[in-house]
């Protein structure tokens, strides 16, 4: 076209401008006007974009950004759904909005008196998204497979899983473990007939509210409702999960291409047209382990353990009451967070008696004076020649944690305690963590977390904490047959009124600082329903109740 145009228009022997040229100019002019017209009408941009008024807001497809895709795919037998959001599958039980357990695939269950046998009755109307019925056989198969997968999902307590008839499954444990009911809410059921460990993670088939239509790794996942789902049906006919980096996602939100966007605290106060910020309470906590034993070296590994400063309980308690958690939140997290006092705030097994007022600098200083930590000339306290100084570790992969640790150090300085923050890889943290505090993040829907922090010699007991009474409560909680009894014992394990790891008078092997509120930019008019307290891990948990989202 251009070639011909040039020949006709600029050839020296052509006398007049051809009619084709006139037509071309006319066409171009019309096009320019059309484009200009489009610009003035924001409602007619790309089909994906969010619109702010009129009937179109009720569109039945939405696009959301909730962070990265799960690398390992969507296989519940290797840990997908452990944090309570499954989308494609459903479990025997589930957590309600108050994080109490309620029936999901199960219609009823009995626990034997010795706490070893759990008998679940599976609902009859449950179907996989391909229409095939979900039976007790599938449940037994799932638990057996998950047990043998040796993943993050801990099913070592399971002895056997057996279907006694098509609707009844009997799960036998090798020891009484009351948290098994929480586990029953963390395992999504997969179909025995078609399950293949190689293909399942990318082509999940389950009985949850949604089914996966398409997954382009690194780009997007498209999901649609499972028409056979027995629960609340989804309002939306298609949901696209996009996988971008945070900055691109924010830019996309600003251009109106996304309906829900996870945002980090530092961007949470950026105004975005036609979107508003929603923050959700979480148990996504951050806190330091505080080694409670004096310095020594581990006989077996030779690694340094214990901490000269923090082995004094007065120092640990002074830090707990002396720092101002809200100041840390304002300084490091742009104000997006809630002060934390235990690792399980607001969960069903949380003991509210552990809460105390903080920011009591004078009281904390008295406590330190009384314990013999006297202020030196440079403002740093000294006791028997030991300076009130310690390093703390922040995992090197997480800038946010480093910032929290630095803000914590600034608070400790007010008390005359000198804290130096080092960013270390997780390998180094684990290797030296029995001597140096680490900034941890926990928060899941299973009280077993309390055991892993406070039980003698447990996995995350980096404080080397030992308290026989606490161990007794934890054992009692695990062996309880009734949920009520278990919850009571979990609460006592935190603080029973006289002893325990938490509360201002407690042994204080950990200092909890903040539960980081999870922020999302949400399109105006989109109602995300009632959200439970979110677990650790910003992003996906908001999809927990995707089938309850509606346009208002």
């Amino acid at each position: 076209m251009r070639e011909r145009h040039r020949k006709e228009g600029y050839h020296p022997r052509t006398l007049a401008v051809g009619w084709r040229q006139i037509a071309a100019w006319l066409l171009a002019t019309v096009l320019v006007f059309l484009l200009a017209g489009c610009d003035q009408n924001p409602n007619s941009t790309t089909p994906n974009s969010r619109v702010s008024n009129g009937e179109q807001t009720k569109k039945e497809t939405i696009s959301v950004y909730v962070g990265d895709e799960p690398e390992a795919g969507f296989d519940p037998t290797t840990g997908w759904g452990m944090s309570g959001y499954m989308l494609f599958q459903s479990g025997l039980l589930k957590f309600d909005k108050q994080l109490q357990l309620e029936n999901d695939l199960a219609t009823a269950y009995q626990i034997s008196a010795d706490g070893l046998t759990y008998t679940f009755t599976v609902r009859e109307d449950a179907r996989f998204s391909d229409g095939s019925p979900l039976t007790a056989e599938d449940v037994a198969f799932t638990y057996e497979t998950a047990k043998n997968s040796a993943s993050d999902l801990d099913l070592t307590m399971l002895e056997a899983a057996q279907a006694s008839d098509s609707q009844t499954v009997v799960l036998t444990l090798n020891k009484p473990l009351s948290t098994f009911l929480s586990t029953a809410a963390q395992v999504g059921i997969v179909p025995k007939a078609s399950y293949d460990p190689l293909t399942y993670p990318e082509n999940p088939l389950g009985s949850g509210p949604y089914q996966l239509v398409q997954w382009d790794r690194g780009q997007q996942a498209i999901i649609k409702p499972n028409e056979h789902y027995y629960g609340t049906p989804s309002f939306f006919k298609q949901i696209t999960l996009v996988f971008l980096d945070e900055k691109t996602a924010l830019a996309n939100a600003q251009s109106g291409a996304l309906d829900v966007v996870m945002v980090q605290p530092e961007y949470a106060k950026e105004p975005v047209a036609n979107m508003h910020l929603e923050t959700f309470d979480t148990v996504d906590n951050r806190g330091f382990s505080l080694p409670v034993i004096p310095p020594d070296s581990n006989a077996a590994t030779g690694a340094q353990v214990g901490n000269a400063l923090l082995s004094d309980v007065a120092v640990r308690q002074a830090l707990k009451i002396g720092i101002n958690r809200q100041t840390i939140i304002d300084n490091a997290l742009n104000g997006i967070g809630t002060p934390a006092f235990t690792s399980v705030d607001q969960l069903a097994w949380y003991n509210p008696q552990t809460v105390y007022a903080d920011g009591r600098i004078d009281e904390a200083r008295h406590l330190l004076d009384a314990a013999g930590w006297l202020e030196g000339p440079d403002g740093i306290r000294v006791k028997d020649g030991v300076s009130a100084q310690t390093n703390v570790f922040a995992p090197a992969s997480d800038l946010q944690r480093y910032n929290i640790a630095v803000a914590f150090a600034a608070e400790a300085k007010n008390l005359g305690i000198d804290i130096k923050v080092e960013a270390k890889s997780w390998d180094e943290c684990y290797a030296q963590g029995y001597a140096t505090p680490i900034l941890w993040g926990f928060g899941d829907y299973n009280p077993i977390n309390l055991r892993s922090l406070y039980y003698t010699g447990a996995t995350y007991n980096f404080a080397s904490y030992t308290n026989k009474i606490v161990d007794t409560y934890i054992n009692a909680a695990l062996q309880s047959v009734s949920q009520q009894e278990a919850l009571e014992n979990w609460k006592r394990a935190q603080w029973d009124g006289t002893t325990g790891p938490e509360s201002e008078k407690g042994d204080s092997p950990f200092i909890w600082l903040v539960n980081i509120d999870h922020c999302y930019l949400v399109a105006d008019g989109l109602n995300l329903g009632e959200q439970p307290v979110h677990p650790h891990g910003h992003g996906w948990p908001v999809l927990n109740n995707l089938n309850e989202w509606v346009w208002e």
Partner: protein
Amino acid sequence: MTERPNSFALDNRAELHGADTYTRVFAINKRTRTLILLAFFCFLIAAVMIAGFVMDPQAYGPNYDLKRQMPSLNHLFGTDYLGRDMLARTIKGLSLSMTIGLVASLVSAGIAVVLGIASATLGGITDRFVNWAVDLAMGIPHLVLMILISFMMGRGLTGVVVAVAITHWPSLTRVIRAEVLQLRGEPYVKVAQALGHGSLWIGARHILPHVLPQFLVGLILLFPHAILHEAALTFLGFGLPFDQPAIGSILSEAMKHLSTGMWWLAFFPGLSLLIVVLLFKALGENLALLTNPHSFHT
């Protein structure tokens, strides 16, 4: 070529004879001008390095009362989202980066001299091996190689220094090899050989003095490379951790805040890095002028 090339005792007779009093007093010849510039660059670089080392960590730490300040007289480069003074952070960061650059380029230049001279004098299998190693190292994308090495060494300071140090020698090796090969054919070397001097004597008296200028210029020109690559590694997250405000980590943190309008977080540190790199380049080029016997008499 009989004169020692790095002797500074050259005068400029033409100018002394032909010029009037004014120019004789105030005119500075090119060599002096270069020397002054050289001294000034060295002073600037040394000042930044020393300032970074003696700086109180408090100076580049957070001051939560002064968050997100635009550049002003109190904070020339502004402050970031934690109230950290960006000027102090930039100086500390440049100082860190330059130290890493210094160590890395010294090691790289050392490797280059040893390999270059060995390759040219020993010849045969050694020469072929060195050439093969140079081709190999040049054939792999530089940044990828550095990321691999840094990752293998466990990131952090060690990872960065090792990665930058052992990847910057190939081109200088080639230059030195070529130089030595050429020198070996020079008449005065042949004469020295004919006079019965040993190869060590020739090496010390004839070869090394002639290679030295190439080595020095090469060393200094490696510097900006090393700094930029350190910054790149850290920027990409394979380098120094957050508690070390290297220029790369400052820039990568700043990138996150560009979209919130805090342009000064990236602009000033980036500009400073550019200036330091240009300073080193000018330093190397001026040094080349000074040490090359031909450059002032053409």
